[in-house]
C-alpha cells in the first residue's frame, strides 16, 4: 500500500512522458486521477493508522536490497509513521487540488501534457522523500524533487530567464546536496548505518564532535532545499515557473523538505546544542530577511516568495528549538501549506485575469471584478498574518511562544517577523484588491473558471479551519509525540500577555501598510527616490550580487585561466618538446616516407612474422 502512494503518480508521469502526443487530449485527466488516487490511498492508510495504538502506528516496508557493499548496506525500504503521514496527506491533498487548478491554468499551453507529467513526477519524488526509511533513499527523493523543480521552473524554456532560473535553482540546491552527501558519509563512517532507525539508535554513542558535524551538514542541505540563508537566492528566481508550480513546489511542499529533514534527524539535533543553535540562527536570519525582501516587491509572486522564505524561517527556527519546537514546526508547515498554496493560486488567478501581468502597481480595486479570488485570497491573508481563529494564528503563535521560552532575542525576532509579515501582506492586499484601478490599457479583469476557483475555495476553507482542526480535532501534539519525543515547554511569558502583544504588533504592521498603500494612491511606476533599505530589499538584499562577486566571477576567471593554461601550458610544453625532437630528427626523416600508417603496418607485419616464426618453432 505504501509503495502504491509513490507508484501511482510515477506511473502517471511515465505514461505521459513515453506516451507522447497520443496522450495530449486526456493526459491531464490521467495525471489528476493518479494524484487523486494516491491521495485516497493516503487517506485509507491514515484511517488504518488511526485504528492502531500510538506505538504501533509506524509501519515499514522493505522492498529490496538497494546497495550492499561491505558493511555499507542500504535497503530500498519505506517507512510510514505519523510524521510522514502528515506530509503524505499534504502532498497528495494540496497536490491534487493544484493538479485540478492547472487544468484551467495551463489550458492553452501547447505543452500541457508535459507539464502534468512533471507535476506527477514531482509528487512521486516528494512522496519518496518523505517515505524513505534511510538517508540515502531520501537523497533520491531529495534530488528527484530538485529535478522536477528544475523542469518546472524552466518549463517555458524558450524564455531565457526561465531557463536560467531553473538551472540556478538546481545548482544552488546542489550546494545544499553536498551537505546531505557529507552527512550520509559521516553517518556511515561514524555510526555504521544510514537508516533512520539505525542512526537514531546509535547517535547517542557517537563522538559528539561528529554528531555536531552531521547536524551542520544536514543544516546545509536544509538551507539549499528550503531556501534558507545563505542559499536563499534561487527561490525568488524560481517564480519564473508557472504559478501552480510556485504554489505546489515553491510554497507548500518541496521547500519545506528542509524542515522535514531536520525533524527526521532529530536524534542528531537532540544531542547537539551547537547544531540546534545554528539552526535557530539560520531560521531567525531568514525569517527576517525574507519578510524584509517581501516588503519592497512589486511582483506579486516574488512578494509571496519572500514570504515563503520567511515562513519557512519560522519553521526552521522552531525545529532548532528542539523537542519543544518540532511539533510546532510541522504544525506551521501544514497550515502554511494550506494558506500559502491558496495565496499563490489566488495570485495565479489574478494574473490570469490581468494578461499574465505580475506587477501589483498595475492592479488595484480587483475586489469587485474578481470576487471569489478576493475572498479566498483575503482568507489566506488573515491566516498568514495570524488573526485568530484562522489557521496561521495557532501555529505561528506557538512558535513565538516557544521561541521566547528559549531566548528573548529569538522571541523578539519572531515577533518582529510577525509585524513585518502583516505589513507586506496588507500591502499586497491593498495594492491588488483595494485602492483605485491602475490597469494597463486593454486589460479587462475577470474571474477565473470554476476549475480554478474550486481548489482556491477548498484551500480557503483550510486557511480558516486548518489550524483549529489540526490543534483540536487532530490533536497534532499528541499525534506527533511518538516521533518527535516528549517536550517540556517553558513559557516565561504567559499566553494571556503574549497573544495580545503579538496581535498588537500584527495590527500595527497591517495598519501602517494600510495607511501607506490603501489610503494613499499607489504610483504606477515604482518610485526611485527610496531609502537604502528599500533599495536593498528590491535587490533581494544583494544575495545575487554577493554570489556573483564571490563565486561566479572568480570562478569564471579561474576557468578561463585554466583553459588557457591547459592549451598553452601543459599541451604547449609537451608540444614544444616534441617539436624540438622533430627538428633534430628532420634529417633522419628523409630516409623515411613519413607515413605513420606505413610504420604501423610494418610494426604489425613484423609482430605477425615473429608470432608466426614462434608458432612454427613450437610445432
Amino acid at each position: 500500500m505504501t509503495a502504491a502512494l509513490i507508484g501511482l503518480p510515477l506511473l502517471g508521469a511515465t505514461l505521459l512522458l513515453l506516451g507522447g502526443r497520443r496522450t495530449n487530449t486526456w493526459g491531464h485527466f490521467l495525471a489528476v486521477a493518479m494524484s487523486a488516487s494516491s491521495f485516497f490511498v493516503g487517506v485509507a492508510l491514515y484511517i488504518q493508522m488511526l485504528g492502531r495504538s500510538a506505538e504501533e502506528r509506524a509501519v515499514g516496508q522493505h522492498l529490496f536490497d538497494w546497495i550492499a557493499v561491505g558493511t555499507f548496506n542500504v535497503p530500498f525500504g519505506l517507512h510510514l509513521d505519523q510524521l510522514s503521514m502528515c506530509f503524505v496527506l499534504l502532498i497528495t491533498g494540496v497536490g491534487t487540488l493544484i493538479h485540478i487548478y492547472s487544468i484551467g491554468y495551463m489550458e492553452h499551453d501547447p505543452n500541457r501534457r508535459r507539464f502534468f507529467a512533471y507535476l506527477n513526477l514531482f509528487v512521486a519524488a516528494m512522496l519518496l522523500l518523505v517515505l524513505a526509511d534511510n538517508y540515502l533513499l531520501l537523497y533520491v527523493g531529495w534530488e528527484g524533487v530538485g529535478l522536477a523543480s528544475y523542469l518546472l521552473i524552466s518549463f517555458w524554456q524558450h524564455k531565457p530567464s526561465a531557463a536560467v532560473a531553473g538551472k540556478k535553482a538546481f545548482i544552488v540546491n546542489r550546494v545544499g546536496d553536498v551537505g546531505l552527501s557529507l552527512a550520509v558519509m559521516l553517518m556511515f563512517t561514524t555510526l555504521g548505518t544510514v537508516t533512520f532507525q539505525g542512526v537514531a539508535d546509535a547517535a547517542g554513542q557517537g563522538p559528539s564532535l561528529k554528531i555536531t558535524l552531521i547536524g551542520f551538514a544536514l543544516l546545509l542541505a536544509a538551507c539549499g532545499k528550503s531556501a534558507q540563508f545563505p542559499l536563499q537566492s534561487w527561490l525568488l528566481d524560481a517564480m519564473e515557473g508557472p504559478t501552480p508550480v510556485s504554489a505546489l513546489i515553491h510554497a507548500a511542499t518541496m521547500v519545506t523538505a528542509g524542515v522535514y529533514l531536520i525533524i527526521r534527524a532529530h536524534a542528531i539535533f537532540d544531542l547537539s546544542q551547537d547544531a540546534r543553535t545554528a539552526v535557530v540562527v539560520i531560521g531567525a536570519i531568514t525569517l527576517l530577511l525574507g519578510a524584509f525582501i517581501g516588503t519592497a516587491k512589486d511582483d506579486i509572486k516574488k512578494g509571496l516568495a519572500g514570504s515563503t522564505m520567511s515562513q519557512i524561517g519560522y519553521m526552521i527556527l522552531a525545529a532548532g528549538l528542539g523537542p519543544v519546537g518540532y511539533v510546532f514546526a510541522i504544525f506551521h508547515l501544514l497550515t502554511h501549506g494550506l494558506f500559502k498554496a491558496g495565496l499563490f493560486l489566488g495570485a495565479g488567478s489574478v494574473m490570469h485575469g490581468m494578461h499574465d501581468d505580475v506587477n501589483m502597481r498595475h492592479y488595484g480595486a480587483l475586489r469587485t471584478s474578481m470576487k471569489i479570488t478576493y475572498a479566498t485570497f483575503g482568507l489566506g491573508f488573515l491566516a498568514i498574518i495570524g488573526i485568530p481563529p484562522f489557521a496561521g494564528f495557532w501555529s505561528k503563535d506557538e512558535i513565538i511562544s516557544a521561541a521566547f521560552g528559549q531566548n528573548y532575542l529569538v522571541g523578539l525576532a519572531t515577533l518582529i517577523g510577525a509585524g513585518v509579515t502583516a505589513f507586506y501582506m496588507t500591502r499586497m492586499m491593498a495594492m491588488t484588491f483595494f485602492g483605485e484601478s491602475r490597469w494597463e490599457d486593454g486589460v479587462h479583469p475577470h474571474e477565473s473558471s470554476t476549475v480554478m476557483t474550486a481548489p482556491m475555495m477548498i484551500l480557503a476553507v483550510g486557511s480558516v479551519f486548518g489550524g483549529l482542526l489540526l490543534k483540536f480535532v487532530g490533536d497534532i501534539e499528541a499525534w506527533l509525540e511518538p516521533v518527535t519525543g516528549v517536550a517540556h515547554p517553558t513559557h516565561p511569558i504567559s499566553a494571556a500577555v503574549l497573544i495580545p502583544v503579538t496581535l498588537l504588533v500584527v495590527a500595527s504592521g497591517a495598519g501602517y501598510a494600510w495607511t501607506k498603500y490603501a489610503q494613499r494612491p499607489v504610483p504606477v511606476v515604482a518610485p526611485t527616490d527610496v531609502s537604502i533599505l528599500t533599495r536593498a530589499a528590491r535587490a533581494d538584499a544583494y544575495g545575487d550580487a554577493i554570489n556573483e562577486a564571490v563565486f561566479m566571477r572568480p570562478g569564471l576567471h579561474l576557468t578561463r585561466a585554466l583553459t588557457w593554461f591547459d592549451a598553452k601550458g601543459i599541451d604547449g610544453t609537451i608540444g614544444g618538446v616534441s617539436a624540438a625532437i622533430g627538428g633534430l630528427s628532420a634529417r633522419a626523416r628523409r630516409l623515411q616516407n613519413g607515413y605513420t600508417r606505413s610504420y604501423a603496418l610494418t610494426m604489425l607485419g613484423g609482430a605477425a612474422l615473429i608470432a608466426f616464426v614462434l608458432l612454427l618453432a613450437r610445432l
Partner: protein
Amino acid sequence: MSLTALMLLPLIGAVVVFALPAGRDLLAKQVALGFGLVVAVAAVVMGLGMDKSNGGLQYVEKYSWIPSFGISWGLGVDGISIVLIVMAAVMVPLVFIAGWNDVENAGRGTVKGFFSLMLLLEVFMIGVFAATDLFLFYVFFEAMLIPIYFLIGRFGGPQRAYAAMKFLLYSLVGGLFMLAALIGLYVVSARELGAGTFDYTALTQLHIDPATQKMLFLGFFFAFAVKAPMVPFHTWLPDAAAESTPGTATLLVGVLDKVGTFGMIHYLLPIFPDASKYFAPAIITLAVISIFYGALLAIGQSDMMRLVAFSSVSHFGFIVMGIFAFTSQGLSGSTLYMVNHGFSTGALFLVVGYLSSRRGSKNIADFGGVQKVAPIMAGVFLLAGLSSLALPGMSSFVSEFLVLVGTFSEYPQAANIATVGIVLAAFYILWMYQRTMTGEPSQEVSSTVNEISKRELVAIVPIIAIIIAFGLFPQGLLNIINPTTKQVQSTVQVVDPAPAVQGLASTEGSGS
C-alpha cells in the same frame, strides 16, 4: 562459450566485413551489426553465468604460447573484468546503430573499413580485459592502438591526422614505460620463482621487495595514467574525442580508457601492494586535482565533444580516487563507476553526434532552442546529461556515492573536497543544456535540427534504460563485482575501517 570464442566472433566478423565487395555498404553494416549483436548476447550470457560466490578468475583458458619466456595464451575473467567486457560488448552494436550514417566512402576511409576496424577493436577490447598473462595483456594494450589510430585518422574531423598522431604518441610513450616495467617484473619473477612468468595469479603471489615494487609500479602507473587519463597526462583526450566520429569517441572514452583504471585495480594493487599503499596519498591528491581540473575545463569548453571529454577527465578522477582508497565501497564503487561511465558518457557522445550531424557543428554557440524544434532530442540529451551529473535514481549516482563514501572512511579531506565536484558537474551539464536546448531557435537551428529518428532512438533508448535500471537495481552488478574487490582487498591486505560506533549493524533494515 569460451573467452577465445568470444574474441573469435568479432574477429571473424571483422574479416568477413572487410572481405565484402566494395560498394555493398549496407550489407557491410548489416553484417557488422549482426556480429556485434551476437557478441553482445554471448557476453551477457557469460556474465549471467558467473559464479557469484567466487571472486577469482573464471572461464579460465591457458595454452602455452612462447614457453621459453613463460608466455601463454591465458584468458579468464573475474567480477571486475566481466562487467567491463559485457559493457563493451553491449555498447558496440548500439554504436553501430547510432553511427549508421556517420561515415561514407571518402579517400582511404571506406564504410566497410570502418565497421571492420570497429569489430577488430572489439576483439582487442575483450582481450585486454580477459588476458591473464601480462605479456598477452601488453600485446592487446598496444594492439588496440592500431584500429583506434585508423578510426580517428581516417574517419575523423578536419584535425583528425593531428589528433590521431597525438593519441598514438602519448599511448606509445606510456606503453614503453610499461614494457620496461614488464620486463623488470619478469626478471623479478625469474629471480624469485626460478623461472620467469607472466602469469597473473603467479605474479600476484610474488613477494617483491618494496624498493623494486616502487620502480615497477611507476612504470605501469604511468602507462595507466596516460590511458585513464589523469591530469597532467590528459591533453590527448579532448583532441582525440573531438576529432573522431561519435561512435569512436564512445568506445575510446567509454571503454578503452577504462583499461587504465582497470589496470590499476587489477594489476597494480594485487601485484604491487606495498607500492600501491606508498603512493596512494599522492595518487589520491592527483585524482582530486583531476576531478576539479576536468570539471573546470569542461565549464570552459565551447565544443560539446571536448566538454564531454573533459567531464570524463573529472569522472576518471573519481574512479582513481575510489581505487586507491582501498575500501570495499571505494573499489566496488570505482568498478561500477567504470561501467556506468561507459554508458552515460556513451549516451552523451552519441546525442552530441546526432546534433552535430544535423547542424554540421559541435559548437555550443551554434545551437540554442533545440527543445522547441526537437523536444524528444532535447529530452534524451537531458537524460544523458543527468546521468553524467550523477542524479540520484540513476546508476551513476550509486557508483559516485560509493566512491565518495569509500574514500571518506580513509581520506576524509579528499572526499570532502571531491564532493564539492558534484556542484561543478551540475554546472557544466546544465549550462550546456541551457545554451544548446533552451531559448528561441535560430534560423539555422530550425532549418537543420529535426527530431530524433527511430534509428537513433533504437541506439540511445537501451542505454538510458540500462542507466535507470542499474540506478534502482545496482545490486545485480555489485553481486558480481563485490567478491572480486573483496579478493583484491585481501591480496593487498587491507580491511575496511570500522565505524566509531559498533555493534548496531543488526538494527539495519526496516521493522516490517
